[in-house]
């Protein structure tokens, strides 16, 4: 089973969050990228646009289909990872680090309380994998 970093929070839609002050950097987990297979295209929001928790912040296409990326927290986008727009393969090869997608300024840091820690997310994907 994959290792999910302890310093990240996770939602049940397989997105992770790294928190630094009021800033939240978001990407998808290693489990998600493996499930999706080779990622072919990605669409991300523009800087200054606003993203709601549990709503899509982008869209991704793999050979298997189109998937909406669901934000774990709400906030205004302050940066988008241009590197993955140039080389989408980074999301497959390094999803928890250089494959990050967006950074936003959180509007309500209490939303983090509803997210899973690495242990809880590990148990969640274990259960999901068992049901397949």
């Amino acid at each position, binding site marked *: 089973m994959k290792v999910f970093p302890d310093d990240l929070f996770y939602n049940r839609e397989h997105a992770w969050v790294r928190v630094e002050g009021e800033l939240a950097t978001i990407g998808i987990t290693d489990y998600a990228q493996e499930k999706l297979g080779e990622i072919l295209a990605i669409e991300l929001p523009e800087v200054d646009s606003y993203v709601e928790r549990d709503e899509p912040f*982008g869209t991704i*296409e793999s050979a*298997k*289909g*189109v998937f909406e990326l669901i934000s774990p927290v709400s906030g205004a986008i302050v940066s988008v990872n241009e590197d993955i727009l140039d080389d989408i393969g980074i999301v497959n090869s390094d999803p928890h680090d250089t494959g990050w997608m967006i950074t936003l300024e959180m509007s309500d840091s209490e939303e983090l309380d509803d997210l899973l820690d690495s242990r809880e997310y590990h148990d969640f994907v274990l259960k999901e994998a068992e049901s*397949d």
Partner: protein
Amino acid sequence: MIWRFISFKRLNAFENMAIDEAIFRENQRADSPPTLRFYSWSPPSVSLGYFQATSKEVNIEACRRYSVDIVRRPTGGKAVLHENDLTYAVITSECNQLFPTDILGTYKVISGCIAGGLSELGIEAEMEGDGRSCQDDSLKAACFSSPSRYELLVKKKKICGSAQLRSKGVFLQHGSILVDFDPLKTCALLLPQGSDQTLQVRKLRGSVTSIHEQVGASVSVENICHVIKKSFEKKLNIELVEGCLTAYEESLKLRLMNDKYMNDKWNMEGKVASDGRKNSD
């Protein structure tokens, strides 16, 4: 388990896509029943995958000449000409135990249901096991040029192509089952101008088939719907009960039609101003 069945209708491309997305969004919002829907396209239309570049994948001028509408799907995949096909849509939550959350597993289950229906017509369709990529660059845009895993082939020729959208534990899978196939028109509409169409037509003839070709006679769309519906019921052990869109779905359908699927910005550029997920320039 009871599913909602929305019986066959011929509708335009914009309404068809708006209905599929409205049902999908309603499933995300509320605990609505799984849905199976059959439809075809009038006037004939080309549908594009979510990320496809319209001007590169479709001969827009030829579509105008033939009065063929162009619409961008909410799902992935490649361009499809919908003229003599039957389209199905399955929309359901991942929680109903009938489908694995594994994406390919879903394709496998639904392909099995369609294959069961085709078998009643005397067509033995098999699931593509490994997927094969199209080596011909000029044909790559056309959906039927290359089967993906668990899509349906008859004697190694593709007869059904499908695409999926997933979000928040709900999936929409829709797919085109070829009732008849016109490689000449497919090439004229889906290939860039100036490509060697004679060669491509020959290649498509060798890689694509249809119900009519396999049966050797005309089969009514109603009959095809009937056998596939029965196969879904039998293989999934479900009861399909005729239904219609809810009031919420109807109103969302109208909004999606006007704001998104009839909007040139969406269909040509993949952008709509009113939808937070797609930003205008």
